[in-house]
């Protein structure tokens, strides 16, 4: 019936009129605008915080390949085929070697062996508290280790039982200062290893206090025999359900091999990182939905506020609208006027709220940007665009009822009351 004439957005007369009414009702316009600004401000803060939290957690996951599966030996809690409960399960090189034959969907795989007892690390007269991991070459992929100098552990190191070490950036800074560590020797429990590489790790400072050794060499030197402490692998698939099935398959195989009940949850521990990642992401989806519900609620309150104010404005301008109609204003041009004013108030104050919200988030980001749990809490461009659309839409919705009322004003009635 009545088409909205919003086409002439850049009509100076319309803007002049909107500016005039706003000027005449400064306080009221301010209060209305404030409610919208507050709504958008809160939405930005909530969304930004949600993002910050999410970025923080995602950052933690970044340390390792997200689709890896880790296996740790445990202690049986159920008796099985005549074997007592409380039996310790031990992983050996054999497990590591056999697993890929049984489970073909493994892409990369490494074991970890830890030197038993206290570990002393030194170079010349400098000592430091660093930890040592004895691994296979694939560990680099699984742990997301970035070599910055030299190289990582390779197959040859393992086959020839080479005494080589790859050290973290913090180890280098702690022991070698300005010296180039490559080719130098590092002393681990009084055994000398030749440094062949230096790495960084996105997992944080603590990760870079590690030293990697070839697992075969370490087992031999530190009396580890064929013992391993942990197995880590990356499946070929990135599908959660498939990785879950694979983890189950691995457990079944290990149960058979180590003679424990498959339903025993303490015999070995399997950590499926992809599944956990998925769970956390689901949680964030939940938080996001929650935030949007609250945010939209706040904005709706703002819309109702604007709508109410516009209703009063229309009522106050009844006479003026009557004059306009007598002079030839069509109902749709009156509607356009009211809606444009509503959109103007909503968008303008909404943007103020948005700028303040984004500003605050930037501030928080620069102050706490590097803390682990709250990272880069910015609202993205996408959100800004969405907010703009939302604001204009809100303005239209808020203006709709008052505009319809304005369009229905009858000039005789409007012109009579004095």
């Amino acid at each position, binding site marked *: 019936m009545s088409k909205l004439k919003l086409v002439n957005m850049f009509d*100076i*007369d319309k803007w002049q009129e909107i500016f*005039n*009414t706003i000027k*005449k009702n400064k306080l009221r316009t301010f209060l209305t605008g404030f409610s919208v600004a507050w709504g958008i401000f809160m939405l930005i803060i909530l969304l930004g915080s949600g993002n910050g939290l999410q970025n923080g957690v995602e950052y933690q996951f970044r340390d390792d390949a997200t689709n890896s599966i880790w296996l740790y030996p445990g202690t049986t809690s159920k008796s099985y085929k005549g074997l007592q409960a409380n039996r310790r399960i031990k992983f050996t090189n054999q497990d590591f070697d056999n697993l890929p034959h049984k489970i073909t969907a493994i892409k990369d795989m490494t074991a970890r062996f830890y030197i038993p007892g206290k570990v002393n690390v030194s170079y010349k007269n400098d000592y430091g508290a660093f930890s040592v991991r004895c691994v296979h070459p694939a560990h680099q992929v699984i742990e997301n280790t970035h070599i910055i100098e030299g190289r990582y552990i390779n197959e040859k190191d393992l086959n020839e039982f080479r005494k080589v070490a790859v050290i973290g950036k913090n180890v280098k800074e702690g022991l070698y200062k300005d010296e180039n560590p490559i080719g130098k020797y590092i002393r681990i429990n009084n055994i000398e290893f030749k440094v062949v590489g230096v790495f960084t790790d996105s997992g944080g400072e603590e990760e870079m206090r590690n030293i990697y050794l070839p697992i075969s060499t370490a087992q031999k030197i530190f009396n580890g025999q064929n013992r391993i402490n942990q197995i880590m692998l990356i499946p070929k698939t990135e599908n959660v359900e498939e990785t879950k099935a694979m983890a189950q398959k691995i457990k079944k195989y290990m149960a058979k091999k180590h003679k424990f009940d498959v339903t025993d949850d303490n015999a070995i521990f399997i950590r499926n990182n992809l599944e956990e990642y998925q769970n956390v992401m689901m949680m964030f989806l939940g938080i996001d939905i929650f935030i949007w519900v609250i945010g939209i609620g706040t904005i709706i309150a703002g819309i109702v506020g604007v709508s109410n104010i516009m209703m009063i404005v229309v009522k106050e301008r009844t*006479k*003026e609208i009557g*004059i*306009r*109609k*007598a*002079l*030839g*204003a*069509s*109902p*749709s*041009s009156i509607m356009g006027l009211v809606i444009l004013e509503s959109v103007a108030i909503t968008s303008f104050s909404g943007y103020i709220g948005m700028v303040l919200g984004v500003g605050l988030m930037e501030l928080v980001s620069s102050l706490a940007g590097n803390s682990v749990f709250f990272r880069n809490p910015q609202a993205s461009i996408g959100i800004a665009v969405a907010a703009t659309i939302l604001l204009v839409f809100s303005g239209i919705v808020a203006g709709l009822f008052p505009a319809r009322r304005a*369009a229905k004003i*009858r*000039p*005789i009635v409007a*012109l009579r009351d*004095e």
Partner: protein
Amino acid sequence: MIRFENLHKSYITGSNKLHVLKGINLEIKEGELISIMGSSGSGKSTLLNITGILDNYDEGSYYLDNMLISNMSEKKAAMLRNKYIGFVFQSFNLISFKNALENVALPLYYQKVSRKKRNLIAMEYLEKMGLKEWAHHMPNELSGGQKQRVAIARSLITRPKVILADEPTGALDTSTSYEVMEIFKEINQSGITVIIVTHEDDIAHRTNKIIRLRDGLIESINGELVNPEFVETEISEHV
């Protein structure tokens, strides 16, 4: 130009029905200068509002420029008002936050005339009203006579065929009233039909034809009683 045939109009307030116009028959030719008189509540404003397509009627017919005006959309009514009719009100009805020039130019805005052009034309009309110097003053800085002249300029800017003025001198002193009447005369001499509702005899006598309303009917035209029997039968028919 304007023709009413057996025009009836009632107002319904709550459960009461007030029969205001009870069968108006009237023809006004192009270029006439007419005043409508009558006691308060006799239906003068009602008749004028119907003439200006600001209000509708219940029965009979109304022709404007040989066009039957009945049951039209708001949009069409607005367009016809803009094209055919200029209004002048007792209380001026200028828009308070617009200056004289902008007030005068407003009807052209609804004809989609460009800002520059309509301000130029508005200035012309203000000049005709002797208000060139006041063009950029706000309504509250103008005297009553000046306001009414701005309103008249506004009513003329679309070159309407009819000017409808509801007690245009009601809020003005005598000498200013006479000045305004002179303006209406000049307007009329340019060929525009002018209809003025007034209470004042001296104002009415400055027009060419006086129509007297009484109790919703035309009592007399220029003092000549309109057939009294006809009046009586009409009343008994519609009681």
